[in-house]
C-alpha cells in the first residue's frame, strides 16, 4: 500500500529533472545577459526619463522629458552630433571605396597574397590606444613623418593635432586606417563567394576588366557592400576610443566632442555625475543608429528590386 505513492513521487521527481534540465544549460548563459545587457537597457531607458536623478540616493523628483530637453539644447551635444555625423560622412565613403579597390586587387591571383593579407589585416587586432600613440607621433607638428613626407610636395607643415582647424581630419585619417582591415576582409570574402562562371561568361562576351568590374563584380558584391556600410556606420557613430591617444580627450579646444564622448563626459568626468543626461544622450544615439540601420535596409531593398 505504502509503496505506490513513493513510486509515484519518484516518477514526478524524475520527470521534473527531465523537464528542467534545460535550465542547467540556459541559466549560466542567461544570468549574465540578464544582469549586464537586459537590465541595463531597461535601466538606461527609465533613467533617461527621471527628472533630477541622484545617482547616490537613487531619488528623483518625477518623470519627464527634462533630460532630453537639456541634452538637445546643449551646445556641446550639438557639437557632438555635428562631429559624429561628419566623421561618419567622411570615413564611410572613403574607407568603403578604398576597401573595394584593395579587396578586388587582393582577390586577383597574386603572388605573396599571404604576406599582403597579413599587412592589410594586422591593424585589426591591435589596440586603438597603442597604435593611436604611434599616429600621434606620426602626426607631430615639428618632427612628424607625415609633415616630412608632405614637404616633398611643397606642403608646409600642418599642425594636425594642436589646431582645431585640422584635428578633425587627423581623427578621420586614423579612423579610415583603423576601419580598413575589417572592411577589406568582409568585402574580400564577399568577392570570394561570387561564382567565377560569371566572370567567364562576361569574358566570353568580350567584356574588358573595367567593364567586368563595374557591370559584374560591383552588382554581385552589392549585398556585401551594404552589409559592410551598415556595420561600419554603426561603429563610426560610436567613435570614441580614438580621441584618447590622439587628443587625450575632446581635442585641444574641446572642439572634438563625439556623442559617445559626450555620454562618457556626463557620467564619468563631470562631478557630480549626470546620469540623466548621459542616459538621454545614449538613447538618442541608439535611436540614430536604429534609424540609420532601417534607412540602409530600405535602400538595400529598393536597389535589390
Amino acid at each position, binding site marked *: 500500500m505504502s509503496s505506490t505513492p513513493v513510486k509515484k513521487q519518484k516518477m514526478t521527481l524524475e520527470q521534473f529533472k527531465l523537464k528542467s534540465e534545460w535550465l542547467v544549460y540556459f541559466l549560466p548563459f542567461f544570468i549574465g545577459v540578464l544582469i549586464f545587457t537586459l537590465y541595463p537597457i531597461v535601466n538606461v531607458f527609465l533613467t533617461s526619463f527621471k527628472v533630477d536623478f541622484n545617482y547616490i540616493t537613487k531619488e528623483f523628483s518625477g518623470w519627464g522629458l527634462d533630460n532630453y530637453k537639456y541634452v538637445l539644447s546643449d551646445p556641446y551635444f550639438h557639437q557632438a552630433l555635428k562631429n559624429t555625423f561628419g566623421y561618419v560622412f567622411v570615413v564611410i565613403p572613403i574607407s568603403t571605396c578604398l576597401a573595394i579597390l584593395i579587396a578586388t586587387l587582393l582577390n586577383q591571383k597574386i603572388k605573396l597574397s599571404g604576406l599582403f593579407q597579413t599587412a592589410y589585416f594586422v591593424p585589426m587586432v591591435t589596440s*586603438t*590606444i597603442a597604435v593611436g*600613440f604611434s599616429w600621434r607621433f606620426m602626426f607631430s607638428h615639428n618632427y612628424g613623418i607625415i609633415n616630412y613626407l608632405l614637404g616633398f610636395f611643397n606642403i608646409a607643415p600642418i599642425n594636425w593635432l594642436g589646431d582645431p582647424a585640422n584635428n578633425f581630419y587627423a581623427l578621420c585619417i586614423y579612423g579610415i586606417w583603423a576601419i580598413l582591415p575589417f572592411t577589406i576582409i*568582409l568585402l574580400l570574402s564577399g568577392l570570394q563567394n561570387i561564382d567565377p562562371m560569371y566572370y567567364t561568361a562576361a569574358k566570353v562576351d568580350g567584356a574588358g576588366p573595367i567593364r567586368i568590374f563595374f557591370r559584374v563584380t560591383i552588382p554581385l558584391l552589392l549585398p556585401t557592400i551594404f552589409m559592410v556600410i551598415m556595420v561600419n556606420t554603426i561603429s563610426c557613430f560610436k567613435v570614441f576610443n580614438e580621441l584618447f591617444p590622439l587628443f587625450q580627450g575632446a581635442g585641444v579646444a574641446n572642439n572634438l566632442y563625439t556623442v559617445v564622448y559626450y555620454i562618457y563626459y556626463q557620467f564619468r568626468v563631470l562631478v557630480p555625475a549626470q546620469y540623466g543626461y548621459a542616459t538621454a544622450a545614449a538613447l538618442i544615439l541608439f535611436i540614430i543608429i536604429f534609424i540609420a540601420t532601417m534607412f540602409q535596409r530600405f535602400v538595400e531593398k529598393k536597389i535589390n528590386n
Partner: protein
Amino acid sequence: MKKLFKNLSFGRVLIYLFLTVGAITMVFPFYWMITGAFKSGTEIISFPPVWFPTSFALTNFVEAFERAPFLSYFINSVVAMVGSVSICSFTTIVGAFAFSKLDFPFKNVLLALLLGLMMVPFEMIVITNFRTIIDLGLYDNILALIVPFTSSIFYMYILKGFFDSIPNSLYQAARVDGCSNWKYLWKVMVPIAKPSLVTIILLNAIASWNSFLWPSLAILNKVNKTLPFGLYSFVNEGGSRTELMMAASTIVVLPMIILFLFARKQIVNGVARGGLKG
C-alpha cells in the same frame, strides 16, 4: 596577341605597385612605433626623421618598466582575458546547446529578443553596468573586468548556428546509446565545433586584450590597470617622452601581432563569418 600580353603584364605591375604602397601604409604605424621604441631622445625628435635607429638597446623599454608597473598591467590583462574568455566560452557553449538542441518554453521568443538586444550599443549599457559594478562592490577590482563579460549573445548566436548544422541524427544516435545531453555536448558537439570555438575564443581574447573604455571606467588604482589603460595613463601622466611612449605601446601591441601571425586564417575567417569587429 603580343600587345595584349604586354598590356596585361603592365596591369599586373600596377596592381603590385598599388598593393605594395597600400601594404606599407597599413604597417607603417607599427614600423614607426617599434623603431621609435629603439630611438634615442635626440633621434626621435630630429627632422628630417631618422628612418632606422642607430642602436637596438632596450634602454627605452627598461625605463618604461621602471616608470610604470607594466609587468602588473600585463599580468592583469592576462588574468582578465583568461578569466572572461574561459567563463564566456563555457556559457556560450551551454547556451548555444540549449537553444540549438533542447526544447523549453518561449524558446523562440527569447531567441528573437536576444537578437534584438545585439543591436544595442555597448556604449549605452555601460552607464548602468558601471553603477552595477559599484553596487556589487567590484569597483577597482580585477573581477570587474571579468564578471560583466561572462556571457555574449553574439558568440552564442554564432555557435548556435554551427550547432544547428550538425545533423540531428548524431544526437539521436547518441541518445539511443544512452548518452546524456551533458556527455553528448562535451564528447561530440564540442569536438566537432572545435574550429568555430577556436575562432570565437580568439576574437573574444583580442577584444578583451584591447578593451579600453570599460577598464577606464571600472578601474582606478595603478595596480589593477590593464595594458591599454595603463599605457594611456602612463603617457598622460608621464609627460611627453615619445621614445618611452613608443616602447610602452610596443609592449601592448606585440602579443596581438604575434597571435595574429600564428592564427591569421582563423581570425580572418571568423571575422568574415561573424561580420563583427574583432
